[in-house]
């Protein structure tokens, strides 16, 4: 007995650095039988279809496109086919432009330091760009956004800081314990996840002008 497989669905495609990318799909119902999947694609302006070059690197139900298979000049058209003994079911067609699915990894090494200068006291936040694997991709220009709040506070204060990787915060409450995070995006792509939280406890007597 058994049924043909349910319709698979493309969930997400992501490129961390505009040089490679990965797509993930969600299987439909398995019809009570073992299924396997074939991930087809063709590129804009090409007739012939190709099969996914690498089903394993990015884990189950995924297709990984290495540099060699990644082009920012053409849209990709994907279809996923689920098959079992009874029959097969194809997903809808999906179109993806690699430049529009860039979501970098979060920035690294967010540090918070209190500094006292002649002209003012402030909290200095510093971070570094995501590592992007072995690629020192210099042509990915990143913008950053910070968020900070008193640890017990509910509302995050968000600050867009553009290309910079340091930021001075003047108006903070002495004695307060603060938590901060930073994220990044390329051009108008998708924001990365927030970095891990970083904390700082400001001494009580510190006079942070506000």
């Amino acid at each position: 007995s058994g049924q043909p497989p349910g319709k698979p669905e493309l969930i997400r495609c992501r490129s961390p650095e505009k040089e490679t990318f990965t797509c993930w799909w969600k299987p439909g119902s398995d019809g009570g039988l073992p299924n396997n999947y074939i991930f087809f694609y063709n590129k804009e302006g090409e007739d012939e279809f190709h099969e996914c070059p690498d089903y394993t690197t990015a884990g189950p139900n995924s297709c990984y496109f290495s540099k060699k298979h990644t082009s920012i000049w053409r849209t990709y058209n994907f279809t996923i086919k689920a098959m079992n003994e009874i029959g097969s079911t194809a997903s809808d067609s999906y179109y993806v432009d690699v430049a529009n699915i860039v979501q970098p990894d979060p920035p690294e090494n967010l540090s918070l330091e209190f500094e006292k200068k002649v002209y003012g006291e402030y909290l200095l936040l510093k971070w570094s760009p995501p590592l992007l694997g072995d690629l020192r991709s210099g042509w990915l220009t990143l913008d950053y956004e910070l968020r900070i709040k008193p640890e017990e506070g509910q509302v995050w204060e968000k600050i867009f800081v553009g290309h910079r990787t340091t930021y001075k915060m003047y108006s903070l409450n002495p004695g307060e314990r603060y938590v901060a995070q930073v994220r990044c995006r390329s051009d108008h792509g998708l924001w990365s996840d927030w970095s891990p939280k970083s904390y700082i406890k400001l001494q009580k007597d510190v006079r942070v002008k506000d």
Partner: protein
Amino acid sequence: CQVSLGDLFDRAVKLSHYIHSLSAEIFNEFDERYTQGRGFIAKAVNSCHTSSLTTPEDKEQAQQIHHEDLLNLVLSVLRSWNDPLLHLASEVRRIKEAPDTILWKAVEIEAQNKRLLEGMERIVGRVHPSDLGNEVYSRWPGLPSLQLADEDSRLFAFYNLLHCLRRDSNKIDNYLKLLKCRLIHDSNC
């Protein structure tokens, strides 16, 4: 569903800008480290393998040339650099104590030049499909000189190649910015 011509040009210009800045950096780094005071600039005259390709040399000439011809010129110059960049990336490893920053830039320029060539073929295919067939480019005869035993001659060969790369990558970047403004923004960038 296609990548728009405007997006194609945006990506091409971002890439050509990046390739030129890498080319300027690798030239400066190489010159500072290996060829200061050797007067190579005097010998590096009329010595680029692409000088047979007649390219515009000022704003008026660049604005008078038809956009299809300028696109094809960019394509020809890019194709002319495929071979030398391939060998540069491998031969630069043999330079004495070549720093990692020079090695990495040579590899990155070669990879990004190939990527820009793919993009330009895409753009020309869109703007003037019939033109893609004619593969005009300038052959590069310079590999033997990169492998010469005499160090001075070999260093001059690298110097000359990087000097020409900086120049041609600047030309390509400039022409693409002009073409983008002309074709996408009606010359009103």
